[in-house]
Every structure is written in structure tokens, then in C-alpha cells.
């Protein structure tokens, strides 16, 4: 008898039968691996469901002979705000691309609602997961509304145009992201902050329950960083959309996300509740930089600032 996890890690295509509900195997897997509480997941869900909302098991990725990700496992729940942090080159964006099946070469399993992502057609994935890519310098020759309306693609039948419902959803997302008055402006003519909100509006127009953001604030000034984070939090709290955000900005992760996964050299260094990462004083190890943290009056969550290299 082979070990169930072996099937999962060896071949990306084999574990369909597990996903389809071999409950005995899965329960055994749960007990043996004990990897499901590291993210502070709600206890009751474990009793009711055999699988979590989103599960990653033994995910590895090698591109062109280089190991980018190495045996990564974690889960998150519906409505979570998860942040993936780490230094440049840690594999954060690659991990996110595997989670959205933009990279297909990974081994291991990525499951959404108990279904292998690999078994889902691209359209179905796009109905669940929306993206805000790291497209700071890319040429997007469309207006804000045009770009948002392109997000309706996974919901439209081939050859059919925009329905009234599509238009309503687009208008609503533009309003939510506060770009309704910029709707007819060209994306390339917007400032960084406006552009980021427009891209988030487009992701909202995709009507998904999960939103992936890749470095959403890296090119923004302080005000627009705060503004963007506010918008993401609003989307997470008010609309209940699950958010996974890749960032190298610790403060952004600390103040926005509920849970953090810290990557370094393609491995998970730490995962848990975002406020705990300060207590565990792992930051300097992850980023190879000395940090000091301070609290402003009346706030529980500290701010972190770099002090210099680790010597």
C-alpha cells in the first residue's frame, strides 16, 4: 500500500480520485500530515467538511532546471485575507501563479473546494479567481470601462455580446473601486494609484469569490498605498471575497492580512496569524535585514521598519 501523500506529490494528474471524494484516504491524510491548523483555520469547518476551501499539498515548481518552489503546503478558508511575503526571488509570484494555474508545470496538488485546479477548465477557474497582475509598465491600450468589460469574458457564452447584467456588474465594480468618473479614460493615461484602482475594478467585474493581488502597492506612494489597502480590505470585509496578496511590504501584510505565509528560497519559513510574526521575531531571518518595530498611540499592531543589514 502506498502512502497517499506520495500519489499527490509524485504526479500532478494522479490524485483526481482523491479529489473526487475518497473520504477515507483524505481523512487519513489529514491525521498524518497535521498541516491544517498552521494557518489558524476555523475548527468547525474541519468537522463539517472533509476538505478545506483551498488546499495546497506538496507544491513544487521547477522552471528551466531551477527549483523555484519546494514542497509547499497550506490551506486557507473562505473569506480569509492571506498575504504571502518574502524577499525578492523567494518565489512569491510563482507560488501565486501556481495557485491560479497560470503556471501549469508544478507538481503536487492545488485544490479549490475539493476539486483539483488541474481538472478544471480555464473558464471555470476564471469564474472563481480574479487577478490583479503586476502590470505597472505594461501597455494596456484600453479605457477603464473597456478593460473592466473584458473581465466578463469567463461568464459570457462564445459569440454573445455584453448583456444588461454584465453592464450593471461593470458599473457597480467601477463604483466600488471609486473609478466610475475615470471610466472613459485610457488606462495608460492614468496615474499609478488610479490605474491600480482601475485594475482592481476590472478584477471585481469578474464576479469571483477569490481575488489574487501581485504586489498591488509596490509602485505607489504612501497615500495611494493606504488607499489601495483600504479598498482591498473593503472588498474582503464587505463583499466577503477571499483575498490572497503577494507583497514584500511587511507593514501592508501586518495591517491588512489576517494570515501570513512567509517564503524564502522557495520554502515556507513561517505561517500563522499575521500579528504573531512580530512575536516570533523571524523577520530578520526571512529578509536578512535588522528590523525595529514600534507602535503608534492607540494601535495594537506595530509598524516595522528596516534598520540595516544583518551583521
Amino acid at each position, binding site marked *: 500500500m502506498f502512502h497517499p501523500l506520495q500519489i499527490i506529490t509524485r504526479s500532478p494528474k494522479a490524485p483526481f480520485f482523491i479529489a473526487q471524494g475518497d473520504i477515507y484516504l483524505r481523512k487519513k491524510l489529514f491525521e498524518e500530515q497535521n498541516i491544517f491548523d498552521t494557518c489558524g483555520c476555523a475548527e468547525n469547518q474541519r468537522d463539517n467538511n472533509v476538505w478545506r476551501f483551498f488546499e495546497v499539498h506538496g507544491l513544487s515548481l521547477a522552471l528551466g532546471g531551477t527549483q523555484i518552489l519546494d514542497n509547499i503546503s497550506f490551506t486557507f478558508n473562505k473569506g480569509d485575507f492571506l498575504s504571502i511575503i518574502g524577499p525578492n526571488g523567494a518565489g512569491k509570484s510563482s507560488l501565486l501563479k501556481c495557485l491560479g494555474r*497560470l503556471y501549469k508545470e508544478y507538481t503536487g496538488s492545488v485544490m479549490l473546494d475539493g476539486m483539483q485546479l488541474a481538472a478544471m477548465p480555464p473558464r*471555470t477557474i476564471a469564474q472563481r*479567481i480574479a487577478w490583479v*497582475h503586476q502590470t505597472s509598465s505594461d501597455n*494596456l491600450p*484600453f479605457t477603464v470601462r473597456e478593460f473592466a468589460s473584458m473581465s466578463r469574458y469567463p461568464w459570457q457564452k462564445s459569440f454573445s455580446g455584453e448583456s444588461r447584467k454584465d453592464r450593471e456588474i461593470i458599473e457597480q465594480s467601477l463604483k466600488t473601486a471609486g473609478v466610475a468618473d475615470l471610466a472613459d479614460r485610457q488606462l495608460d493615461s492614468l496615474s499609478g494609484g488610479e490605474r491600480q484602482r482601475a485594475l482592481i475594478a476590472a478584477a471585481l467585474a469578474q464576479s469571483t469569490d477569490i481575488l489574487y493581488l501581485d504586489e498591488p502597492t509596490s509602485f505607489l506612494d504612501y497615500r495611494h498605498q493606504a488607499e489601495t489597502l483600504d479598498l482591498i480590505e473593503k472588498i474582503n470585509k464587505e463583499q466577503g471575497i477571499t483575498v490572497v496578496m503577494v507583497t514584500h511590504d511587511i507593514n501592508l501584510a501586518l495591517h491588512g492580512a489576517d494570515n501570513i505565509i512567509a517564503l524564502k528560497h522557495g520554502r515556507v519559513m513561517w505561517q500563522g496569524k499575521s500579528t504573531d510574526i512580530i512575536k516570533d521575531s523571524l523577520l530578520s531571518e526571512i529578509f536578512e535585514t535588522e528590523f525595529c518595530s514600534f507602535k503608534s498611540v492607540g494601535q495594537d499592531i506595530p509598524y516595522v521598519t528596516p534598520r540595516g543589514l544583518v551583521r
Partner: protein
Amino acid sequence: MKKFMLPLLFVFSLAVIFFAPFIGAQKIPFSALFTGASEGPARILWELRIPRVLLGWITGSTLAICGLIFQALFRNPLASPDMLGVSSGAAFGAVIYIRLGAAFTFFNVVSGLSCAAFLGSLAATIAIYAAGNLKKNGLSEATLLLAGIAMSYLFGSLNMIIQYSGGYTDTFRMMRWSLGGIEAVGFSQVWMTLPALAVIFIIAFCMAPELNLFVCGEDVAASRGVSVEWLRKVLFLSVSAVVAVNVAECGPIGFVGLLGPHICRKLVGTEHRRLAVASLFFGGAFLVICDTAARILWSPEEVPVGILTSCIGSIFFLWLLLRGKHKI
């Protein structure tokens, strides 16, 4: 302004198709349309001028739409069907046919030269596609583009070898073929190329949402649910096949596939459904105008229209580039 552009282009295109047959070395009165085809001017009109104008229009439209698809597919404003090996592959087939002195017709409809050209461009397409597929991490747009350019040079050099080894008459024929020209006698070539145009227009029109997403980048397209790799294969192969059909009849005609989509983008914007329609009307009208100019400028001598499109096209294109404020 952009709202009225499509109807305007439609009217423009129709007008060009209507008036172009009456312009030329031989004056033809409008009344010739209604007399029987047996008389002199009416015969020229029905057997030479009208088929030629229609063939020109179809070729121009086809090339413009193919260019539009390729530019979206490769996210590269310089991508065009005549650059990516398909044309030089066709030329290779034609050159071999002429060199071997072969002569046959296919079911008495398609000339042997066209057949050879079609086979040549198909060979080039398959070679590019296979070269792109050999790479381990999938068929990327950059690989396809560069494989196309490499293949285009390879076939170009093979053509030169064969041309160099050929006799005077052969070499002259080869050279004339590779200049590209629209020469139609009767409607058979029109019926040959029209289905190809229909196919590629329907593809461009129906896949406009996918093309829009392609322009925004592979990641954006994939995250909106487009099967990027599958679609890239389908579009690359269908565009290549359609261009092959066309090049087989008219020879390589440069610059229409590059210039047409760019001008249409200035006229109607960047949405691909509108662009497909605009390219259909504009590309056709542009090539018919060029071809008419090629007929009358040095009359009674004719210039192959391929020379003229490249000449007018490149100068016009440069002018557009320098004066436009939009990024391309």
C-alpha cells in the same frame, strides 16, 4: 467621430470597388456594365478589370485581418504575415516549381504554380510550428515569432540559391513572381480566395474578445479564462493557411498586413471586433487603390503592386509614426 468610422469605411470601400474597374489605360464607359460581355470594352471590364479589383480587395482584406490577428497574438506591432516565413515559404515553392520546369494544373482550376506556392508556405508554417514546439516549456509567443523570422531568412537564402543556379528566363520568372502582383483573368481566382477571407474574418470577428485579452498580455488572458496555448496554435495555423492560399494566387504583397491594422487602430480604436470590420473594409480598399495606381501610373506599362504597396506603405507608415502622438 469614431462612431461613424465603420459606416464611413464601408461606403469608402464600396465606392473604391465600384469606380476602380473603370479607371485604366483603356477608357470604359459606365454603360459597359449593362451591355453583354462579348463586346470590346465590356469584355475587358468583366473578364479583366472586375475580377482584378475583386481579387485585389479580397487580398488586401485578408492580409490586413491576418496582420491584425498576428499583431494581437504576438503582442508585437511589427508582426505581419509577410514577415513570418509564410511568404518566403510560398516563394520557395514557386521558385522550385519554376526551376524544375514543371507544368501541371490541379483539377484544371488551380495552376501548378499556385499549388507549389501553397505547399511551400504550408511547409514553412509546419517548420515554424515544429521549431516552436521543440522548446520544452511550451509554445511561447517570442519563440514562434523568432522561429518565424529565422525560417523566413532560411527560405529566403534557399530561394536565392535556386535563383542563382537558374537560367535567364527562369530567374526572370522567379523574380517577377516574388514581386507580387494581382493578375486575374476571369473569376476563378476570386472564388479561390474568397472562402479563405470569409474564414479568417469570421475567426477574427468571433474571437475578438480573446484577441482583446491577448493584447493585454498572456497572464491577463489566462487569468480571464482564455486557453492561451490552444488558441495560439489555432490562430497561428489558421492565419498561416489563409495567407498561404492568398500568397499562392497573388505572390507576396508586402506592407498591407502591417500598415492596415495600424491605420485602422487610429481610425476606430483598439477594440478587436470593430478592428476586424475596419480591417476588412480598409485593407481591401487600400490594396485596390494601390493596384489601380500600379495600372495607370506608367501606363501602358504595369508595375507589380507589391512594389507599390511597399513603397507607398513604408513612407506613409513613417509619416504616421512621426506625427502620431499615440504609442503603437
